[in-house]
């Protein structure tokens, strides 16, 4: 790993230090999500050599949400007026390395390598300029960087785990290019051919072809080359397996001390009043009807959310009462939003809406892999202004090992939410999970209905959603 990436990684985790009540500084544990240190695979080759077809074929073959393709075409420089006029006359050299903004590419790749979110520019081929939109890439485990100069910049090469050069016959390349540019990029045939001989071909010989020398494998005939395809797929599968193993091992390391150390003071366990115990008994009873289960779970989750809301920031507010007097009260300092960790977290939403009817709610789907038990992030949509909210309630029905909660908190932190603004709300939690989570993120607050000793399967969501 390059030094700069390591430095950024540390920065993510050392945002603030948490003072402990006894005056010592808590030793912060380190958690690396499986998307930190993403494996990057570069695919270069002549225009029309089948790079993007090969990339898509690899992604299809793996059929996993965390393999993402990044096209270098997104990093074309925006053209100034003069260059733009040349471009419209097909006299601008798009096929030279100078047309690519490698600085931005390197910056984005380093962000992704550090596990951060990266905003990828959207380039308009019709206007020859970057649009003001961006698409964001977050949490891929494998990133395929595809483009004629994918293996050109030494800073990019340094970040890559596998380098592929696609080879194809020049006639094939030209005919593919004519078809594609006409169809997808709104160009006319004359212009395309003019460009080919003026720029594409000379540039290929000068800049593109020499990239073979740095490639790990050279793939002739693109997707038709089954042997090469399965080699690449095999390599990626191996990388994914290594990441999963590392991730699980890292989670296991966080277990040390779980039984001996007391639970963090920022964890609030609901007072076990007789009503709370009575409701817990109904919820735990396998013979409880679904109607009762849902009723009592909603009732209890509303209390969990009420308790969670005591941890959000308030400011004094001078109130004029209807009686013509004043009252020195409080009001929330700012917006409070929620993020549900699906599917379990959705069971707490009825309770959430009893307290904040119009609460903005982000959603993420974290599933545990059936074979390995490793939590995996499948889906993520957050309110766009989440980094400005004063508090974010993170909802999950149950937390046992804490793996998915760690991942969920990491996701929020990566999206600009300060850890001390996160309140995790969960119906039940294992000691181990609480320990892991508060070791890595000592700033977060946790509100939990009850603490259980063992790792439990996720039965609450099964009962609540009845399947």
């Amino acid at each position: 790993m390059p030094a700069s990436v390591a430095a950024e990684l540390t920065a993510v985790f050392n945002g603030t230090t948490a003072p402990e009540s006894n005056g010592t500084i808590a030793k912060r544990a380190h958690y690396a999500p499986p998307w930190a240190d993403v494996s990057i695979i570069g695919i270069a080759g002549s225009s029309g050599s089948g790079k993007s077809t090969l990339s898509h074929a690899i992604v299809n073959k793996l059929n996993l949400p965390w393999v993402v393709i990044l096209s270098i075409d997104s990093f074309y420089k925006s053209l100034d007026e003069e260059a733009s006029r040349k471009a419209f006359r097909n006299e601008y050299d798009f096929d030279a390395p100078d047309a690519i903004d490698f600085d931005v590419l390197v910056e984005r790749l380093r962000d992704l390598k550090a596990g951060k979110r990266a905003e990828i520019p959207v380039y308009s081929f019709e206007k020859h300029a970057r649009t003001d939109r961006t698409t964001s890439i977050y949490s891929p485990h494998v990133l395929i960087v595809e483009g004629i100069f994918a293996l050109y910049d030494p800073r990019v090469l340094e970040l890559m785990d596998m380098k592929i050069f696609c080879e194809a016959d020049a006639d094939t390349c030209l005919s593919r290019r004519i078809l594609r540019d006409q169809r997808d990029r709104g160009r006319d045939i004359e212009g395309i051919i003019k460009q080919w001989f003026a720029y594409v071909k000379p540039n290929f010989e000068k800049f593109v072809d020499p990239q073979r020398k740095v490639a790990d494998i050279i793939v002739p005939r693109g997707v038709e080359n089954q042997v090469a395809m399965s080699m690449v797929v095999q390599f990626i599968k191996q990388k994914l397996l290594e990441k999963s193993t590392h991730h699980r091992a890292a989670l296991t390391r966080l277990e040390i001390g779980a039984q001996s150390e007391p639970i963090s003071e920022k964890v609030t366990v609901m007072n076990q009043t007789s009503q709370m115990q009575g409701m817990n008994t109904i919820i735990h009873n396998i013979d409880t009807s679904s109607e009762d289960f849902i009723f009592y779970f909603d009732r209890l989750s509303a209390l969990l959310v009420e308790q969670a809301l005591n941890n959000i920031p308030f400011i004094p507010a001078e109130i004029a009462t209807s009686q013509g007097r004043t009252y020195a009260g409080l009001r929330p300092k700012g917006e409070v939003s929620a993020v549900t960790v699906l599917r379990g977290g959705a069971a707490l939403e009825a309770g959430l809406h009893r307290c904040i009817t119009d609460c903005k709610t982000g959603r993420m789907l974290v599933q545990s892999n059936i074979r390995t038990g490793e939590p995996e992030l499948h889906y993520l949509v957050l309110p766009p202004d989440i980094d400005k909210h004063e508090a974010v309630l993170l909802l999950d029905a149950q937390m046992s090992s804490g793996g998915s909660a760690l991942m969920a908190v990491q996701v929020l932190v990566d999206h600009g939410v300060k850890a001390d603004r996160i309140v995790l709300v969960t119906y039940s939690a294992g000691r181990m999970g609480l320990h892991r989570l508060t070791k890595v993120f000592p700033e977060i607050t946790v509100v939990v209905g009850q603490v259980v000793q063992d790792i439990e399967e996720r039965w609450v969501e099964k009962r609540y959603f009845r399947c």
Partner: protein
Amino acid sequence: MSDVKPTLTKCVGPVYRAESQKPTAVVSTDVEFDTVTILPQTPQLIALLSIIRNKDTQRGDFIFYSNRIIRLLVEEGLNHLPTVEHTVTTPVGRPYDGLSFQGKICGVSIMRAGEAMEQGLRECCRSVRIGKILIQRDEESARPKLFYDKLPEDIADRWVLLLDPMLATGGSAIMAVDVLKSRGVPEDRILFLNVLASPQGIQNFATKFPKLRLVTAFVDQGLDEKNYIIPGLGDFGDRYYTM
């Protein structure tokens, strides 16, 4: 002559936060009766009360936020009901040593403001029976007078959650309890749920019924010359139903 207690200002917030990091607010006046439970003065509760006290709060918000406070009152009140130990089997097949609720309950609201608390009660106790009592001030004597009541027939066998959001002098609440006692409900099986009380109202009520439990969200400073709670929140019934 009005009798107003000094305000009690405190830093409110979770225990793990340093005093300097907690905002200050006026919290409930203390009272000296074991039978009176005041809800924990959390920042969230103070903020909810701030909303319903505010004269500029619209009716929709008044209903929503007062309902949140009422649910907390009901949840706290229900903790005074008896339970027995009860072991069940969980969906993952292990035994769970818990509790089960004992005894039948019913609600009784003092019309009209008390009826505003019925929704919160039903949100915690589905299909609970609810009786009603109408007490109004008699124009001639200026004393509270019973105009109407409709109560469950078996009320003497039930625990009664008596609902009235405002406890000013305690006149109507005391009369309502007298009605319940005349129907055979023992005093110690009545729970009075109240949003906002005056110290005088608490004093009168708790002295008269030393075995009756009262749960309130907040005890205010006192009463003005018209016997309205101050700083108060106005007329709860008007703000909930008609304003």
